[in-house]
């Protein structure tokens, strides 16, 4: 294959900037051709770079599913937890060592069906977690079943005659539950997504970014929606950037307009701040700060 490689002069020390952030001994990854999860990982790496994060203090927590595999590829302290429980695991991790920047990276089925309760409660508490949801509108790992995000009329493995139950609007849900930061992008919007990810890495509180991503194998194939590139073109054509749009107007449909942008960016005291304030007030001198790493 060398005929493709040597057309341009490539400096000897040239290296893909994502490589130091990944466990390259695990490549190639399991994601299908045309899947967008890897694209979101590129954006995350750029965000880690631009936010000047101390990588030894960034931990990544995933649940189960295709996006759940991100933790396994990230060259960080990384935790592949049980289905739906990335957020409560991350909650314990963050509270035991508040110096950690804890990122939850998981899919729509994991975070909003089996893990939905944890999502709304972590947002309510304003737990200082950065939640990135790669939304491919289906359960891909298990074969393309209906997810709480699957739009109406879509054919899925468990809705062979079309989905008739209403879907969640994730950004509206996140805002209503109390998230400090809410944005939505697609894998077409790589620079905007990287910027949003960088912003949340420097913001306190519960931050949520939804990223729409193609799933050619399990979602599109059943619905004759073409391949990954076709979905990327659809994202390009159908997306409308509306920063600050009321999240209630941002519901997704099978093939309609996709409102993207940053919808919410507000400051609320986070869980640890609230806890400290309350306990200081009640206990005064008797209050003992939690030890970052408990005396073992």
């Amino acid at each position, binding site marked *: 294959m060398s005929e493709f490689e040597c057309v341009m002069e490539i400096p000897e020390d040239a290296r893909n900037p994502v490589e130091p952030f990944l*466990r390259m001994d*695990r490549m190639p990854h399991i994601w299908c051709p045309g899947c967008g999860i890897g694209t979101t990982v590129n954006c995350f790496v750029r965000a880690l770079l631009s936010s000047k994060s101390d*990588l*030894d*203090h960034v*931990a990544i*927590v995933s649940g189960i599913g295709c996006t759940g595999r991100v*933790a*396994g590829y990230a*060259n*960080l*302290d*990384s*935790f*592949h*937890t*049980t289905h*739906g*429980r990335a*957020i*409560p*695991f*991350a*909650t*314990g*991790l*963050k*509270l*035991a*060592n508040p*110096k*950690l920047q804890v990122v939850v990276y998981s899919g729509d089925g994991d975070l909003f069906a089996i893990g939905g*309760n*944890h999502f709304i*409660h972590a947002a309510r508490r304003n737990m200082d977690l950065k939640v990135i949801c790669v939304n491919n509108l289906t359960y891909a790992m298990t074969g393309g079943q209906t997810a709480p995000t699957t739009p109406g009329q879509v054919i899925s493995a468990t809705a062979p005659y079309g989905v008739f139950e209403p879907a969640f609007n994730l950004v509206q849900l996140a805002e209503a539950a109390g998230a400090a930061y809410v944005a939505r992008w697609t894998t077409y919007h790589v620079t905007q997504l990287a910027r949003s990810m960088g912003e949340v890495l420097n913001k306190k509180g519960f931050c949520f970014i939804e990223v729409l991503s193609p799933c050619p194998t399990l979602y599109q194939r059943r619905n004759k929606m073409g391949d990954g590139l076709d979905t990327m073109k659809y994202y390009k054509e159908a997306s409308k950037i509306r920063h600050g749009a009321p999240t209630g107007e941002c519901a997704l449909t099978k093939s309609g307009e996709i409102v993207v942008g940053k919808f919410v960016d507000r400051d609320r005291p986070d869980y640890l701040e609230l*806890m400290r304030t309350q*306990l200081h007030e009640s*206990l005064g001198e*008797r*209050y*003992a*700060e*939690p*030890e*970052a*790493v*408990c*005396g*073992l």
Partner: protein
Amino acid sequence: MHADPKGVLTGVHFLDGDHACCEGTLAAGARFSAGYPITPSTEVVERFAARIPTVGGVFVQMEDELAASIAIQGAVWGGAKAFTVTSGPGFSLMMEHIGYAVMTETPCVFVNVQRGGPSTGLPTLPAQADMMQARWGSHGDYGIIALCPNSPQECFDLTITAFNLAEEFRVPVLMMLDECVGHMTEKVIIPEPGQIEITPRHLTQRPPEAFHVFEPGENLVPEMVQAGDGYRFHITGLTHDERGYPSMNVEVQDRLVRRLQDKLKPLANGRALCETEHLDDADVVVVSYGITSRVAQRALQLARQKGIRAGKFRIIQAWPFPEERIRELAGRVKAFVVPELNLGQMVHEVERAAAGQAKVIPVSHAGGGVHNPEAILKAIVEAAK
């Protein structure tokens, strides 16, 4: 090493088992707990919530038991000693995360104050019906440690033991209280911190480049690590190799799952915690645990008064089951009498260990109260014939 004085409430106290258990967690060095309310266990975390802000740590009330049982594991990987507390229905919900702690070798403690089941059952009344669930409740093959205190004092002492065993073997340790022991109030002596032995977390001293997160030592237990120390490690509930990477093949599965069982062998063979009395001349041995062992004590007294050579074998460590001890006894006694607040659980283990060498007589009780000592006595008398 000795207990951190900040968590130790040295002195003579009048506490119920739940509160004593809480003091045990603090003395053991637990600085994180996540819980969800459920009768009859909630007092443990209620006390923790009141005490921990002055000791230095965090209590967080989660949205359900699923969350509580995984939040503690996040906290462990963040560097804390951590536990959660529950009862029947909550224990059922925690099963998946007991499996996760087994698979990821996360040292942590689950306290189960047992009540009557199945389902919602008897929220305020005792049972010992989760003993097999403690052993086998999560899917897959694994080893587990479970301890059964029979007094508030033991709720304190064994909770410290539970944390120590969790660190030594890197397994979740289950504290199997029952509603009676949890709500029984008695004298509890909390020693000076210098008299409390604590097993520290065995954090690796190796540099990151020479460290594999699941590479077992000679004792089959890997060294521990925590987030934020630059190791960039990976853990997963999937079958994984020594690097923590998922690996779906027969060989890796066999190596991992056998090790998860085998690392606990020292506890089954010889180190099993138990309390015995009059075993030297015994014809009949009463095997019991938890609150039932206190009822059995009365039955044993009555039997001795009748001239029956009855001995006591109180199981303190239910899992791994003390099978060598029971097997050895089975060779020289007529029978075992096994009273339990269930319709027969640990009795199956006694039967298995006795292997037909001695009779095994269950004294079952569906829960909601405790046995009448006469019922146990009757079984002893029958067995001695």
